[in-house]
């Protein structure tokens, strides 16, 4: 399992790339927030709901792409009069970047693609479930049979 602090480090790297980036959120595909960083501590937004909506929008677009058979979805860009929201795939998660309206779109796309690869690797480690190896003390078939016989005798 990976160190959750790795996510904060990668998200901080993303937020430092352009002065227009206000918030970076990493969510899983069910919409649960895994990590988030803000440029300004007083930038009050409901991170969980933004992440969940971004994930839902991304997954909906992904579904549309599947129906149209136009390949894998890379980035969803939502442009508003006073800001932009980017959402990109990163393995089992969705990376969401909230920016000001005036931002270098090309750079954001580039950074999201580059860091997305690293985030995908870390997410795989983070979400990996350790396979349960049978312990030596575990009962084998013979033990179970003898226990059953004993029960029948009772």
């Amino acid at each position: 399992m990976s160190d959750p602090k790795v996510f904060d480090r990668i998200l901080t790297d993303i937020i430092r790339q352009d002065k227009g980036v206000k918030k970076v959120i990493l969510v899983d595909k069910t919409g649960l927030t895994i990590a988030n960083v803000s440029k300004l501590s007083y930038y009050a937004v409901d991170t969980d709901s933004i992440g969940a909506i971004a994930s839902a929008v991304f997954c909906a677009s992904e579904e549309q792409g599947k129906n149209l058979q136009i390949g894998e979805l890379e980035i969803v860009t939502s442009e508003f009069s006073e800001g932009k929201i980017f959402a990109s795939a990163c393995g089992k998660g969705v990376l969401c970047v909230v920016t000001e309206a005036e931002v270098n779109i090309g750079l954001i796309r580039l950074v999201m693609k580059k860091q997305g690869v690293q985030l995908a690797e870390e997410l795989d480690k983070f979400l990996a479930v350790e396979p349960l190896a049978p312990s030596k003390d575990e009962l084998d078939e013979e033990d179970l049979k003898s226990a059953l016989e004993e029960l029948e005798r009772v």
Partner: protein
Amino acid sequence: MNSQDRIQTIIAKLKAQEGVRGVVITNMEGLPLSSDLDPETTENVAAIITSLVGKAIDAVEELKEGTLSFLTLDTTKGQINIAPSPKEDLILVVLKSS
């Protein structure tokens, strides 16, 4: 002649110059409009050069030196010539070999 044809003519003219490795035309948001390089290199050049141009424009403005008209980067592989036009929302980038 439509604008795309005109852009292609300009790129072809520049490409005909000696030592020119590639020409990229991008908007001020870092989205490439036209290029003769492969898509990945084009995206990289457009994004990184636009970011640099943004910082250079800020520096010139801060120093009260008028407006930025041209940028040249001398590298070990050659030169990168950058002609920004914020008014037209365009940046012309020419990569040259030494």
